């Protein structure tokens, strides 16, 4: 009970700190004399906090709509990351000494290093030059459109946003599997005559899954980092693109609310992943109980 209260207190503290810190960033204007900055930042930020309800009333629908569109992309990208990254990581980990394992490892390393906009440009060219032409379907919006929400237009930005998560999850899964393969209990399992599939399913995967969950959480941060660039390339009217334009227009309340939505999303996702990891791995539950 005590550890549960402490956990709740820690989560609440993180949420409040994130809310205050990211909101304050939106009110920064560092191109003026210091005292004037302090005065203006304090008054504007104080005004924003005291009239948060009114700000939300005016800007809430815009923020909510942009957030929903970005969440669709992020969830699609993370799901693709897990769907493609985990099998690729398993192959690279289990067959690390074969050409296939080395190829998957090399491609996943390259994927982590490649900037998102490069992926985005490549996907955009492929979709516009080839897929649009041969299918006759408009897969990409080259001008922002908030009225239309066509699910077909999700594919290109989701694929681009998923590139680094796929690579990172594959890389981390492979490393986790290789670490577990070196353990004595795996040698014991093989010597007992268990098939490779049973060792993978019954021993390797349950021990690697916590690492994979942590990798999924980290890949969400990669995706959040790349969100503005990807939304800009594909004119996806989500939080990233709205934030870029709001900051350029120096619309501080809208910027603050959009930044807070991103920050709180990540904190809540991290907390959810931690709780899920404790459910899946009894050793973490035991450590938490002792702590």
């Amino acid at each position: 009970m005590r550890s549960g209260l402490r956990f709740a207190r820690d989560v609440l503290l993180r949420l409040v700190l994130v809310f205050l810190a990211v909101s304050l960033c939106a009110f920064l204007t560092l191109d003026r004399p210091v005292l004037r900055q302090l005065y203006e930042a304090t008054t504007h930020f104080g005004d924003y906090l005291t009239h948060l309800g009114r700000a939300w009333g005016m800007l809430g629908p815009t923020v909510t709509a942009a957030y929903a569109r970005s969440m669709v992309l992020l969830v699609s990208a993370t799901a693709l990351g897990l769907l493609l990254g985990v099998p690729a990581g398993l192959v690279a980990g289990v067959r690390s000494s074969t050409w296939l394992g080395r190829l998957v490892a090399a491609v996943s390393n390259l994927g982590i290093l490649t900037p998102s906009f490069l992926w985005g440009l490549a996907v955009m060219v492929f979709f516009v030059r080839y897929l649009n032409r041969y299918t006759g379907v408009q897969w990409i919006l080259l001008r922002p459109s908030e009225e239309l929400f066509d699910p077909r237009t999700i594919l290109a930005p989701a694929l681009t946003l998923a590139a680094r998560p796929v690579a990172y999850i594959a890389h981390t899964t492979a490393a986790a599997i290789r670490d577990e393969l070196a353990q004595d209990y795996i040698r014991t399992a093989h010597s007992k005559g268990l098939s490779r599939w049973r060792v993978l399913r019954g021993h390797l995967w349950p021990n690697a899954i916590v690492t994979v969950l942590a990798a999924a959480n980290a890949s969400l941060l990669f995706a959040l980092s790349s969100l503005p660039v990807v939304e800009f390339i594909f004119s996806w009217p989500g939080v990233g693109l709205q934030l870029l334009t709001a900051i350029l227009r120096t619309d501080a309340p809208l910027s603050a609310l959009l930044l807070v939505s991103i920050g709180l999303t990540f904190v809540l996702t991290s907390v959810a992943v931690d709780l899920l990891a404790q459910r899946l791995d009894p050793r973490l539950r035991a450590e938490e109980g002792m702590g």
Partner: protein
Amino acid sequence: MTRLSRWIRQPALVAGTVIVLGLVLIALFPGVFAPRDPEAKGRFLLEIGGQVYAAPFPPNVLYPLGSDSEARDLLSRLMYGTRRTLGIAVSIAVVRVALGAGLGVLAGWVGGAAGGWALTLSAVSATFPSLLFAWVIILAIGPGAGFGVFIVALGLTGWAHWTQLLAIAVRRIRALPYMVAAEAVGVPPRTQLLRHVLPNLLPLIIPTLAQEVAAAMLILAELGFLGVFYGERVVINFTELLQQRATPNTLEWGGLLAGTRLEVFRWYWLPLAPAGAFFIAILGFNLLATGLRDALDPATR
């Protein structure tokens, strides 16, 4: 086996060193490697493979990576821009590692409330995507800000995970038998930190620095693509960016990327050349970081 012969057997270290050394040489002596003056404008029309083209020219014998819309050689512009881009990236990495390592050593060595707050600060900072934070800070600083302010602004992002890593490393070193012995014989804490802890953190910090240069290059590339770069403060209008327009007049790699979003369809070399340069630099520094980490790890000796 000598240390050098052991290091030569590491492909990542060798490849990373070759790439980084190449970039450093180009940055220091661009005139030796570049085929042309970066500002020299060629003829507006050029015959390539029997066809006449207007600038920007595609890659050909005269312009290996193509030219921009003012018939200036892209390869030469990239080579002359290496110094500024590399200088900015290395400076950002130094600020990040100094900040992250400083707070990490504070958290691991001092501990207590100060250490707790250092870790909380890093956890809050880690929540925030680097690119967005950099965008906010850069635009809050406004146009005309100096080089130092630009570097510090970008250095304030992406340091958080090093704090946690170094805090763990310092705690691990403190628990080692020789540290316990040093404390037992009365070595002052400051001497313990300077003589025993910090030198043992170098195998962690040096590869970290290389990796952070790669991370800084990545953020410079993404900011440049969105139109924010040092050297020429360009006020970006998104309506303008969605249409085609000429790239800004700057030698910094990020600046060469600005405004190239739709030019990939007609003039693919305009975004691909600087993007390729960034990719090679990021790859080189990451390989160097991986190789150094393996080479400096005592467990592999």
